[in-house]
């Protein structure tokens, strides 16, 4: 019986393929695309301010509300934060990944892999909370600054507009530091993988053809690592755009997109506005990917 089934499937590889792909495909279409469609649909409904009921009627009112200055400010704040976090992650991750891919001896590489992924094994919330201890007014960081007698430097920094605050933990710098810390592994791994796939002979060929190390970096290594950088930045960028825990625990109480969605949906039941808010990051990501493609990030794929 089993034999006959095997033979049947062997003769009809398309049937086998269909059987294999169908379950995950259904899951994907229903759960992922379905949820996205439901959200898109909801963003075109509106909330009756008087009854608190969602009005199931097509309207652009919710989007009009979304484009109010306070909400645009939230988008702007979140996006600049996501961009800064992404850039910082790239700057830290690239040299590290380059070392891992090119120079680290096998055992050290394994150790570094472990060290990079180890934080992902423990709870995200615990790790975020522990940063409170580091960044608080009487926390480890200010203690360290005090220890080496440069607390004046920290104070002066906290006086600055935008990035400053009464302490590091309530400044946007605090949010920035925690974001960079928690998303860094998501940047290191794809860049490292991309660099790993650049054959050493390409680097040698570039040098052989007269390129100095810096020219080789710009003309060969970076373009070939770009898909990895883009993949990593999709992670850091979208994770930052959507996160609500870090902005709740750090910084002054100004809204970020994730926090806004949480408030509108959870607290005030305004699902249409929350849905419309979520469309923001999606649009931003699409624009980002289009730019990346224009820059040739996917040429070598």
């Amino acid at each position: 019986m089993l034999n006959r089934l095997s033979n049947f499937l062997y003769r009809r590889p398309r049937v086998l393929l269909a059987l294999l792909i169908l379950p995950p495909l259904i899951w994907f279409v229903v759960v992922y695309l379905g949820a996205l469609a439901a959200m898109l649909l909801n963003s075109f409904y509106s909330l009756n301010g008087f009854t608190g009921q969602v009005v199931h009627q097509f309207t652009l009112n919710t989007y009009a509300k979304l484009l109010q200055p306070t909400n645009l400010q939230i988008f702007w704040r979140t996006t600049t934060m996501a961009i800064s976090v992404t850039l910082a992650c790239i700057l830290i991750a690239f040299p590290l990944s380059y070392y891992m891919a090119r120079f680290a001896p096998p055992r050290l590489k394994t150790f570094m892999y472990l060290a990079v992924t180890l934080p992902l094994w423990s709870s995200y919330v615990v790790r975020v909370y522990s940063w409170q201890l580091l960044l608080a007014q009487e926390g480890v960081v200010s203690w360290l600054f005090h220890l080496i007698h440069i607390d004046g430097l920290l104070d002066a920094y906290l006086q600055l507009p935008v990035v400053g605050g009464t302490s590091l933990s309530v400044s946007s710098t605090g949010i920035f530091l925690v974001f960079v810390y928690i998303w860094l592994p998501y940047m290191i791994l794809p860049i490292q993988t991309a660099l790993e796939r650049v054959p050493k002979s390409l680097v040698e060929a570039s040098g052989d053809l007269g390129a100095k190390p810096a020219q080789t970096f710009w003309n060969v290594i970076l373009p070939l690592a770009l898909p990895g950088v883009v993949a990593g930045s999709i992670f850091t960028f979208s994770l930052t755009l959507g996160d609500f825990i870090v902005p709740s625990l750090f910084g002054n109480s100004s809204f970020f997109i994730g926090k806004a969605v949480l408030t509108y949906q959870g607290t005030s039941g305004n699902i249409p506005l929350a849905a419309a808010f979520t469309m923001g990051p999606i649009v931003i990501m699409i624009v980002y990917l289009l730019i990346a493609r224009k820059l040739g990030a996917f040429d070598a794929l």
Partner: protein
Amino acid sequence: MTDAAIRFENVTRHFADVKAVDGVTLEIRDAEFFSMLGPSGSGKTTCLRMIAGFDRPSAGHIYLYGQDVSDLPPYERPVNTVFQDYALFPHMNVEENIAYGLMIKKVAKADRVKRAQEMLELVRLPGYGPRRPTQLSGGQRQRVALARALINHPRVLLLDEPLGALDLKLRQQMQVELKNIQKQVGITFVFVTHDQEEALTMSDRIGVFSGGKVEQVGSPAEVYEHPATPFVAGFVGTSNLIEGEMARRITGSPSRFSIRPEKIHIVERNAPIDESSFGADGRVRDVIYLGLYTRYLVELDGGGDLVVVEQNLKSTSMDVLRAKGRQVRLKWLKEHVRYVGARDAEPPV
């Protein structure tokens, strides 16, 4: 010595505690086609990489046209390389790949395009400029790699087993073509290979490498007909190496000698051996019919095997296969015997 293109002076290269190259002294002449021939791990590729500048000698010096380049980075050497895996840039098209060296030198775009076109003509790939390397066959990639290296007008072109990945027909075709291109551009080619036939076909001179040392340097005919060491005798072409008691019984002296399989003739058991020849009796143990010729493995009566090759000028496969098991006499001219020195290096099996 001033006209030497490349000079190795007592060059040694260690990797950890392994001596990849061990005291090599070598001279490559200007405008010659020089092959570095040897089995893998013999140090030939490391020598090539030291000329290119990818590796630096642990000791000794390398001179390029009289200039000591031992510590010069690759991008400051008038040398270009064709890599074993071609190393074409996957994010650039063929034309951009070829013009890469010019782009680095900031040559104007129009000039770059024009010269890349000329190179494509030279390697017989006109019109392939806009293609991606992935859209090319192995042989085409090979030509692009060649064009990319030659466009910079290097004084020396290094080729690291560039034909290894090609099929036999294409390889033979490229051998002829490479040789023609070398004559056309008139620069020094240094060609690394483990294929002795390839080296014999193309080279003006061959350096035979083994265990990090140079065993012999000479023209193809010299290396083939007068192998300086047992290793060279065994590695370049097939060779029968006879020594000790067996050698004494055949030649009257125990000194080691080599005899090429194609120089040996199979005759009847009772055929006379005249003054000018040596002879030995044996039994045909194996016959391998190879179309153009037949290879016989003959077990000598006193022990030991000899490989004999005979062209199938008149015989058919039926004829030659019947020889298996037959008692035969082997004879060869004394002048074809090479007495090879008592160097310890053994030929690879």
